[in-house]
């Protein structure tokens, strides 16, 4: 599926740091749509081994801000064609997505999101408790008495996909178009002269290049240090766990902000479960017992009949967060250095549109119109993109 390259070339037109979904997607579209072929994707671990392989695979576009909704809606549109584009089954599965509301404040937020979504043609509805009960007759509407379900945001296009396959699909597509993917190669420095990127140092030698795209999720601050850029990005672990396979009983994706749970059932029959971010900065993908305990308790609040179902495995990823819960994308004050970061807990669903918009931005040197709300200078201008309300636990 991938070509192994013996060595790095001395120079590339574009160097992409990070062979996760975002980096590979950008490489793929740069090669396919912008005719840039002399690209190296540098990955310190293995392909898709970061957050692409660690996320809970939820895809949706029911965001809160117009910027967010338009952006993710384009992503969902792209997602639907990817399997055919790649000739690779991503198991892109439209399941419907419920964000449960347990308080009247949450109901207000759901309606807000629904109204903004509908305004931009995205299928979302604020639905009442009776609707939830009809769609999910097995759920305990009282959630153990702790958090009665008052209603939900129902997002019909909500989907899941086989996460690893996304990286493989983009990787293979890029590979076939001549992009070089160098795994187990770590970027150790980025050379900047007179405010311009001129090259990249790696553990396998130096490269000269005029353009560098950084798409490294939780490692973003470390790469930014190499070019001296300051951003608000902070890194917290995000944990998840998965059950043993059981026969499918749960069709849609369920999210509860109050209970800090999101869950879907995979094509293998496993329940993939997650909760909110760990509460403090850490750059280690360790698992905690507290997480497994809390999430299990809240799962049983909603689905008491899962008491005997076993949790198979825990893991974690590193989420690069921003204060307004919107990404930081596009050109930066360092000429030739492009950033695709701040994805926090929702980067997977944006993979295709990030590839599209970042490839455009890298190829033209101008921010794609869809990412203008996500520019790096919005904080200094006090022009934040308030996506926080949609993302309390909104993966």
């Amino acid at each position, binding site marked *: 599926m991938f070509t192994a390259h013996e060595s790095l070339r001395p120079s590339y037109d574009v160097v992409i740091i990070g062979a996760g979904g975002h980096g590979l997607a950008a490489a793929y579209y740069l090669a396919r749509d912008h005719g840039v072929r002399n690209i190296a994707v540098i990955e310190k671990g293995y392909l898709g081994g970061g957050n692409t392989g660690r996320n809970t695979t939820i895809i949706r576009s029911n965001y809160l801000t117009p910027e967010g909704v338009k952006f993710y809606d384009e992503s969902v549109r792209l997602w639907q064609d990817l399997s055919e584009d790649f000739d690779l089954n991503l198991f892109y599965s439209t399941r419907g997505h419920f964000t449960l509301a347990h308080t009247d404040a949450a109901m207000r937020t759901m309606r807000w999101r629904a109204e903004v979504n509908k305004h931009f043609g995205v299928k979302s509805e604020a639905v009442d408790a009776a609707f939830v009960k009809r769609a999910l007759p097995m759920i305990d509407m009282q959630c153990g008495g702790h958090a009665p379900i008052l209603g939900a945001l129902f997002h019909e296009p909500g989907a899941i996909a086989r996460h690893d396959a996304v990286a*493989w699909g983009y990787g293979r597509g890029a590979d076939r178009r001549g992009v070089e993917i160098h795994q187990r190669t770590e970027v150790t420095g980025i050379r900047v002269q007179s405010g311009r990127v001129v090259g990249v140092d790696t553990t396998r030698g130096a490269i000269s290049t005029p353009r560098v795209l950084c798409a490294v999720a939780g490692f973003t601050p470390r790469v930014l240090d190499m070019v001296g850029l300051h951003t608000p990005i902070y890194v917290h672990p995000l944990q998840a766990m998965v*059950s043993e396979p059981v026969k499918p009983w749960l069709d849609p994706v369920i999210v509860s902000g109050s209970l800090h749970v999101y869950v879907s059932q995979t*094509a293998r029959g496993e329940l993939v479960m997650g909760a909110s971010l760990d509460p403090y900065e850490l750059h280690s993908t360790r698992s905690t017992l507290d997480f497994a305990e809390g999430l299990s308790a809240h799962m049983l609040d909603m689905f008491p009949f899962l008491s*005997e179902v*076993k949790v198979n495995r825990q*893991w974690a990823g590193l989420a690069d967060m921003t204060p307004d819960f919107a990404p930081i994308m596009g050109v930066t004050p360092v000429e030739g250095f492009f950033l695709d970061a701040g994805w926090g807990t929702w980067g997977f669903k944006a993979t295709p549109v990030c590839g599209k918009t970042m490839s455009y931005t890298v190829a033209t040197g101008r921010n794609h119109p869809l990412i203008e709300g996500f520019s790096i200078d919005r904080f200094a201008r006090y022009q934040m993109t308030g996506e*926080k309300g949609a993302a309390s636990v909104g993966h």
Partner: protein
Amino acid sequence: MHRLQELPGEWIDRSVALKFHFEGREYSGFAGDTISSALAATGLPYLGRSFKYHRPRSIFSFADHDSNLMFQVDGVPNVRGDVTPLREGMQVTAINTFGGLYNDKARILDRFSAFLPVGFYYKAFHSKRLFPRWERMFRRLTGLGTVTLSSPRALTPKRYGFCDVLVIGAGPSGICAAHEAVQAGARVVLVDEGLRAGGSLTAVDGEERRSMSALLQALVRSPRCDVRTATVASGYYADHWVALTDAQRMTKMRAKAVVFATGVIEQPAVFRNNDLPGVMMASGARRLVARYRVAPGRKIILLTGNVEGYEAAVELHAHGVPVAAIVDLRADSGDELAVQACTKLGVQIVKAHVPVQAIRGFDARVQALDIAPLQASGGVNRDATRRLDCDAVLMSVGWAAATQLLTQAGATTAFSPLLQQFLPDELPAGIFAAGRLNGVFDFNSRCADGRRAGGAAAAYCGYGESRLAPVARSTRVPSHPFAIVDHDSAKNFVDFDEDLQVKDLQHAVQEGFDSSELMKRYSTVGMGPSQGKHSAMNALRVLSRERGMSIGQLGLTTARPLYHPVPLKILAGRSFSVERRTPVDAQHAALGAVWMPAGNWRRPEYYAVGGATRLQSIAAEVSTVRHRVGLIDVGTLGKIEIYGPQAGEFLDRVYAGSFSTMRIGMTRYGLMLDEAGVIIDDGVVARLSSEMYYFTTTTGGSATVFRELLRLNALWGLDCQLVNVTGHRAAFNFAGPACRAILQTLTDIDLSEAAFPFLANRVGQIGGVESRFLRVGFVGELGYEIHVPAGGAVAVWNALYAAGVAHGLRVFGVEAQRLLRLEKGHLIVGQDTDGLTDPFEANAQWAVNMGKPFFVGQRSLRILQRRGPRQMLVGLEFADSARMAKESHLLIEQGDIAGRITSIARSAVLNKVIALALVTPQRAAASSDVQVRIEGGEMLTARIVPTPFYDPKNQRQRVEGA
């Protein structure tokens, strides 16, 4: 398989027969049986089906990872037969069958398996149009057991545990480690996942077992040692925090040091049809025979590559289970004594042969094994293949170290080519490894290694000194490196959970998934319920062979918790859910409160009285406040006291307004910002004396705001002290035109307008209870917030209620209060503001004093002032009062979003629908009309109007007379 004669030491009690059902038919086992052992004794040809190809499977490892022998038991899915005790009346069925175990319609998948290589699913069915249909089919086939949607929630107790030394694994090394640590004086917990301690020894009678039993008895008797069997160390977490789980509960054990004596896990040989029922691990067979007295067959071939194979044959013979032949992969084993012992027993021994394939009999079980000579070059001479009849094949070809927990603890491992095993390399502080895990294989060495590790662990905890020398690692090779045999027709399984064959892994490598992690992800090897315990090592051997790299270079994939899967109920425990109540909670209930959650609190949303509807009740409550008098419990507000010479200075810094200059006995609204200038909280601040203020925060923000204030106080080091009295003080709002007259009958404070004006505060008593009175106007009527110690709250509430009832008092809830404040245009932080709203946008600049030297958010406000508002909070009046918008409905202008309703209600007193909305600054001008889109896309017209809607001149607060 069949049950053998009784033997002393067996684990079953033949005097107690247990009846159970399997696949609808009744069978009988004995007390002490596991589900698998009881089923094996029935002689049924096979007991389960595989996940993907639905191939018949039976007992394989008998070590808590027989994932093809998971059952549906009394409605519970995925119950592991090899470790679950049999109970009378159990209803057991195989999982993942369509039409029953022996008539599974899905078994046809096995025939198609040649067409279903790994990655197949990625390469097919991906037409956008057809995928949903394929997917429906997949979802029918997928999964294992079935969840019973009606089964109730199980609550289990969890507990915390503490010890000096935790020893994981109660085999010889673990027992010796625990004993040594106890001797040194440490508090020790010794756990083992087996039903009984002893590890691999439990199958063997003899001197070794007797000596271990003696030590174990000493440990059980010791007050310093806690021996727990049937207890799995399910995960290692930071700081020696280990989840110990058993069938009933989890103990979260905090140890000062941990000894890992987790041993090794027997690994299968990989050859065609190595999954046939009747092919199993030799160690599993030993346990099956010695403990449960079930013979694996009558004509047994033992496939070996180590001395343990010969030992197994001798032991089985002693238990009345003769082995017909031993096939040794090695030409020269060096185990001459063991070979002689077997020869003496009449066992046929074939050396330097590999298994080529197992032959399937009519009953789906193994009926013969084809073997072929292994040449010195490493090749297999298939032309010399010969067939040995049999009804069981036992495999003893190698082991994988159970390093999963050890690596979770941060230890590194290195592959030993000599032992063909990963061995502990660098161990973090307080982590010790011993026994076979540590590469020490013979009995005496394991004991010595255990003592060494136990002593060192105790010393680490401060008991004695670490004095025992390291034990030399084994020089005998326990694992055979070449136990993987290719076959053109495949079906040589590496992963029995996922039905992965050698070619699947080769295929993954060819596709470019050529590292341990990538191969795992692409092929899903090791991702099934057994988590790679029998597959990871062999998968690595395949990868190593394909890539021409050493196993050490490739390395194992990261082993994450949990070690064995753990039920959600065990992790969840009792699931406590914190709830706060105000002191008059019972009074609310008696008055008909309908509750709503407010953070951790419960608050009356309204009071259901006399069959009135929700809306009627709220309307009546509102009306009573407007016309007579109402009483609401506002005790959930955060309540903070601040004392000290610099208390005023502190408040000046944390609030946007000025408080150091406020007169004693006065009260003022306070707006709290974050460093970015965004509104995060509000409340009222009352100055009670020159050095003491009392202030409130929002209900939702009370804990976080107080904590942040403590931090700021610690940072600034001002001479003041903060006290959170939120729960210690109750608070009521007593409001309405009649409130002053009523209240005056209860207190000696002069409530007259002159003596106690609007926004003043006073301290007095109600019925002997010290009470703080704050004259505030959140609901827009003459009113008093009355703050009293929690202990006196019921008395004061009752007094207010009793005095008011004669004047038509009603208690009112959160909904009525929301409407009342909306009529006054008072914002609610978090509802009428969002995560970016600054005071200018919220029309609250009156609460900001930019002239102060400093307050949190001030510097950002200077920037925001220049930036200008991005939205404005405005009042709206709707022309049409019949149809109503809802909160969060959008304002639309020329097809664009121009704003959003944040609060809306039908006001009876104003006889119209009023709202607050955040709108774009261009739309914020008063008296202009806007369009609001409501349900169904319909547009309503509203007019932007100044606030307050009600009593704009605040005349209701200037009521004279008592």
